[in-house]
């Protein structure tokens, strides 16, 4: 299945329930009943139920407004005699008022009820009543004691003046209380009972996108009580995660890690949200993928092994389902890069060995793969490549050694660090010497992990033959497209090349074009011959993007090759539907 279809399948259970409008009037009845039950949302059950329905109710309010705005006040009362009740009950439920845009839509609805020229006492009364509700939403404020109200009035302040400041102070004091409880445990003067913390998490659900509440949300996420079970409301995590993914709240990485560690569904949703962005139908350049990844905070959070394992598991699943789609491979590679980068930044406090991240892999292989090519002089790159190849080969071909998971696991580990395969492909083309068997094996394995030894050997032979031809042409002054075509041609008396082998050969040809002195002259012609279809063009742009990305990160100086690669990439993108 292709990557895109895979995503659609996954999106199924998480998509919003389709609003089957069985009719506006039945919705109306439904919500009227709900509102009556909820009343002022003063009990645990009503609060919980209200929170569950907040987004849907907001949608309903929008519908109500759309209907009301077309009518004048009298018509509204005729058509919906109980509209007043509905709107009033909404006003008195603080959870609804606090949520997202509900208060705004409610105000719009109430505005529709105002009659600009009331003709009789009924209409006047309705106006008066509506004005009262609007006041309630916008300005009324009630303190526990009269004294405070008198004080603020005496100073000439209206609720609009001190409300933001009061909210800030309340949040600050709650945050410091939470922090005190978190740090001092049983030694605090004011112990926060678990019910209070749970209540706070409930209250935060509708308020999660209000910037003033951010410090409280953060403090709740980081707070660790002393009870064995989770003390926060699960819907709280959902709401925070949603808001975070839609960028409606900004949280520090420590809080996000707490969120994902405490609530697994949030982590899964976050990863799927990322997949959605990365594996969309539009081609994403690796640079952009890197931005998305860093933005999502997943690589940084993955420094915590539990999070890494879960995200990695989801990548593995995606890879299996899409049969190794290139987009997924690219995503894994960039993810690992960002992850290692984040890990190194925290290196001073490196708490977990790599075994915790890759428990099923040989530690020495992991260490080898984690090496930075940048730290090794280019002439010596063949050494680590050879070691990696030998280690992998031993694991893959040794049937009895089941402990490292078999070919797929080895391959899955290797693709995390796919840069090595790219380097191998480049080395093979650039070097004058006889292609080392180890490198041939490594490439063949990386492109086609499921091959049996015989098929792999065949691939290696084919590739060796093509390389032989290419080497002869490398320094040729009269290089032509036809020459290259001949070099890459399949021999007539053998079985046709399997598609993955063809893919590998295309790759080598592209490398050749980028590195051979005469390559730039014939590059376009060759590519047109090699990639006549959209799919193949897509493949070519992917390879070019990957190559440029790698050169940037390795700080490779290769001005001519770079220029050519960039030009080709631009042309291919402009030309077609590939980008």
């Amino acid at each position, binding site marked *: 299945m292709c990557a895109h279809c895979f995503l659609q399948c996954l999106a199924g259970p998480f998509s919003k329930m389709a609003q089957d409008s069985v009719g506006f009037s039945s919705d109306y009845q439904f919500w009227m009943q709900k509102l009556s039950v909820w009343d002022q949302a*003063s009990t645990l059950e009503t609060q919980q139920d209200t929170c569950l329905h907040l987004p849907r109710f907001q949608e309903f309010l929008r519908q109500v407004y759309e209907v009301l705005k077309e009518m004048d006040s009298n018509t509204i009362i005729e058509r919906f005699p109980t509209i007043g009740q509905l709107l009033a009950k909404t006003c008195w439920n603080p959870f609804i008022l606090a949520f997202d845009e509900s208060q*705004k839509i409610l105000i719009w609805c109430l505005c529709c009820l105002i009659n600009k020229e009331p003709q009789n006492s009924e209409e006047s009364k309705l106006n008066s009543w509506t004005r009262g509700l609007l006041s309630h939403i916008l300005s009324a404020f009630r303190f526990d004691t009269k004294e405070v109200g008198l004080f603020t009035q005496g100073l000439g302040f209206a609720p609009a003046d001190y409300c933001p400041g009061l909210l800030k102070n*309340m949040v600050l004091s709650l945050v410091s209380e939470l922090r005190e409880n978190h740090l001092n445990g049983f030694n605090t003067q004011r112990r926060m009972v678990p019910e209070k913390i749970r209540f706070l998490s409930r209250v935060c659900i509708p308020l999660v996108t209000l910037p003033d509440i951010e410090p409280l949300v953060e403090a709740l996420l980081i707070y660790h009580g002393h009870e064995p079970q989770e003390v926060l409301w699960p819907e709280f995590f959902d709401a925070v995660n949603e808001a975070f993914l839609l960028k409606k709240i900004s949280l520090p990485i420590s809080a996000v890690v707490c969120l994902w560690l405490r609530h697994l569904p949030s982590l899964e949703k976050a990863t799927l949200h990322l997949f959605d962005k990365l594996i969309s139908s539009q081609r994403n350049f690796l640079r952009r993928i890197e931005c998305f990844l860093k933005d999502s905070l997943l690589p940084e959070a993955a420094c915590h092994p539990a999070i890494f394992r879960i995200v990695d598991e989801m990548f593995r699943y995606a890879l299996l389902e899409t049969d190794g789609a290139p987009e997924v491979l690219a995503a894994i590679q960039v993810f690992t890069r960002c992850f290692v980068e984040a890990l190194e930044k925290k290196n001073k406090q490196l708490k977990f060995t790599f075994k915790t991240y890759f428990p099923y892999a040989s530690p020495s292989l992991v260490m080898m793969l984690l090496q930075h090519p940048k730290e090794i002089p280019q002439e010596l790159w063949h050494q680590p490549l050879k070691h990696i190849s030998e280690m992998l080969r031993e694991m893959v071909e040794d049937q009895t050694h089941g402990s490292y998971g078999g070919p797929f696991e080895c391959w899955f580990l290797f693709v995390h660090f796919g840069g090595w395969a790219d380097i191998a492909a480049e080395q093979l083309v650039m070097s004058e010497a006889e292609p080392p068997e180890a490198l041939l094996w490594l490439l063949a394995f990386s492109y086609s992990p499921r091959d049996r030894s015989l098929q792999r050997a065949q691939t290696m032979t084919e590739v060796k033959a093509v390389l032989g031809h290419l080497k002869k042409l490398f320094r040729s002054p009269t290089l032509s497209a036809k020459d290259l075509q001949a070099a890459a041609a399949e021999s007539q008396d053998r079985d046709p090349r399997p598609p993955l082998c063809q893919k590998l050969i295309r790759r080598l040809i592209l490398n050749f074009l980028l590195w051979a002195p005469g390559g730039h002259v014939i590059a376009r012609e060759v590519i047109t011959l090699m990639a006549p279809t959209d799919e193949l063009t897509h493949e070519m742009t992917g390879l070019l993007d990957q190559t440029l990305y790698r050169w940037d990160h390795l700080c490779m100086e290769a001005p001519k090759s770079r220029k050519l690669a960039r030009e080709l990439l631009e042309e291919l993108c402009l030309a077609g539907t590939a980008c």
Partner: protein
Amino acid sequence: MESLLQHLERFSELLAVSRTTHVSPWDPATVRRALQWARYLRHVHSRFGRHVRIRTALERRLQKRWRQEGTSGSFPVPGLTNFQALGRCDLLLSLRLLENRALGDAAYHYLLQQLFPGPGVPDADEETLQGSLVRLARRRSAVHMLRFTGYGENSVLEDSVLKTQAELLLQRLREVPKAEGEGPSRFLSALWDRLPQNNFLKVIAAALLLPPSSPRPQGEELELGTPKTPGQGGQELVRWLLAKSDVMAAFCHNLPVGLLTSVAGRHPELSRAYLGLLTDWGRHLRYDLEKGTWVAAESQHVSWEELYGRFQSLCQAPPPLRDEVLTALESCKAQDGDFQVPGLSIWTDLLLALGRGS
């Protein structure tokens, strides 16, 4: 410049009227003009925010107005008290009109149309009036949720209310016209006469305990109710307290002991005055030979237990204050004759009870 100042005057009057029944004859056109004026002043605010000369001139005019109104004996605080307020003058006006029941139906309807145009207007820019009003509504319900649907004891939230009132008080103190230097004192005395005194005392204590902070950078925007230099206003408060002995007495009498100790710790001048009061109260106690304790001569005097409690709290404070208190007690004891035996000097007995007599 002059026209701008006049405009400011007219708008201030308009703002004052908007709360009264004088708006009942207003029609939609009047509302429109009023909103336009407000919008203009808001534009002035954003345009001239960094222009020191214009800003100062406007503020001076506002202060002059306040002084004029103040002397008339009634006690209004004007709607616009400083340059900052201009940035929200349309919000202020709108809210006053929205709450004013005297506003006619047609005018009210028009007002709503202007303030809440509906979904067509892109609301991503939080600067729109609709956005500000809606945000206010949301914050209001947040406060309500955190406070009224609260759980169990709410002392933490009571503190927030006190702290907010303290911040408001200090803000007003900063704005009060200071020409004669008496402005703040007169203002505070007027508040004392008019407002519930118990709450006022608590707010003063909270204000005196607010953390001192760095000077406010020039031209920076402030949200009303969140002042950044509370320390400044604190001085005015201390000065006023020291000048008004009756307030000081009530302050020391009614507030919880621990709170007073904290305040004394922060403000040395107040600690001296507090000590003075305590020694005064001490002198009113007589030793009752039969009961073997110190008793108050009259019912309104402070009792031994209370006096002891206060001194005990003060002695548990950190060094500068604690030492000051002990020194004062020692010197009182010396003045009395430096008795070592209990029952003769209250100061000896206090020191003995505190474990520091010798």
